[in-house]
């Protein structure tokens, strides 16, 4: 890379394991994500996933520098071109500015999911399979807090587990909050760090989990019907998702978010990161228990 002048460097909020920075270089905006020093690994597979998605026509931020093996910043990093738009779910669901976007978004999310699921996983070295049910069952047990509703839901999931139809690239966190939206709708799918090989219906189920509707009245991202989502998906793949399989993944997604809420509170309680915000999330666990009872009984159907 030739020398360029960097300006407007600013730190954005980041996750627990990475830092996010925004900067301008030669009048263009970029986003730098860097593994927080002291964290093991990071960005080994994500840049490859991102460029594979880009080549497949999935709307993503364009990868500019793959810093997985580079040493300039002391820890692995990647730089992407900044995509303009909004990520805050409540604004996307409610602001007048996104009236047109809301009409288009469910179908766009169905199409983009189908496109990303069609990417050849052999083209992404290092991408590994992840057994979500087994993983979260173990997390729940290790947390050591008894939750009869989650245990019942996990038994139901175990008994009713659908046969996986295919092993695809799965985004792994496909939901409102992790997508960039502009006035026309979907601008980019972000946050690929949980990408793995799995059942493609995992992404559709997760998209419909009640927590990710952010108060919206409809199942798909709070703003579309299952039919809209499935029709759009089928327009790319030629195969309509099986609603029962998506529902199975929505139920697992609800258990998963509930368990993540317990572990976020545990992060505070164990002193890893003292935070009243994390503490408060512990009292959101029961929202997921309530949703699971609704999903697994005939209470409202």
């Amino acid at each position, binding site marked *: 890379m030739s020398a360029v002048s960097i300006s407007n460097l600013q730190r954005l*909020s980041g996750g627990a394991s990475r830092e996010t920075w925004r900067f301008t270089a030669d009048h263009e905006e970029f986003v730098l994500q860097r593994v927080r020093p002291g964290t093991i690994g990071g960005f080994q597979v994500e840049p490859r996933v991102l460029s594979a998605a880009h080549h497949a026509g999935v709307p993503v931020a364009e990868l500019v520098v793959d810093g997985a093996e580079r040493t300039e910043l002391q820890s692995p990093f990647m730089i992407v071109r900044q995509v303009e738009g909004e990520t805050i779910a409540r604004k996307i669901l409610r602001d007048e500015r996104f009236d047109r976007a809301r009409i288009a978004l469910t179908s766009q999310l169905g199409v983009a999911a189908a496109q990303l699921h069609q990417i050849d996983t052999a083209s992404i070295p290092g991408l590994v399979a992840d057994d979500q049910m087994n993983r979260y069952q173990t997390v729940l047990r290790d947390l050591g807090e008894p939750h009869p509703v989650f*245990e019942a839901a996990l038994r139901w999931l175990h008994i009713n587990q659908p046969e996986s139809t295919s092993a695809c690239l799965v985004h792994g966190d496909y939901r409102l909050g992790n997508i960039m939206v502009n006035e026309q709708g979907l601008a980019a799918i972000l946050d690929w760090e949980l990408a793995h090989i799995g059942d493609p219906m995992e992404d559709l189920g997760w998209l419909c989990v009640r927590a990710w509707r952010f108060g919206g009245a409809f199942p798909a991202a709070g703003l579309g019907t299952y039919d809209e989502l499935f029709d759009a998906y089928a327009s790319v793949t030629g195969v309509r998702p099986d609603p029962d399989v998506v529902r199975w993944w929505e139920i697992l997604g609800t258990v998963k978010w509930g368990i993540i809420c317990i572990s976020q509170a545990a992060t505070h309680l164990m002193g890893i990161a003292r935070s*009243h915000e994390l503490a408060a999330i512990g*009292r959101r666990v*029961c929202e997921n228990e*309530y949703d699971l009872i609704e999903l*697994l009984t005939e209470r409202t159907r």
Partner: protein
Amino acid sequence: MTAPHDRPTAAELLEALHEWMERDLLPGVDGRLQFHTRVAINMIDIVRRELELGPDQEARHEAVLASFGMKDDEELATAIRSGTFDSDLSAVLMRLLPVVEDKLRVANPRYLR
């Protein structure tokens, strides 16, 4: 009624704190601090509701566990995990609904439908 303590009661103290945060603190903050202030106000309200509803809810929780023949959530969770209730999981979940509704009445009553 709150002997050995004087008034304000615990609930009244929290109410006063909530009022001050909403009236004087919130208008002066924005961004992340505003969000974290709202989280704090919400936590105060959770404790207020727990003080009010908690004692009755404890009795109901125990009654539901007893109806399963269990002494605590740990025992019930273990029984469910081992497959004891596999033949009728939705009935188990229906019987747990009142307990979960009670938790929501404290944590986030607007979530109930």
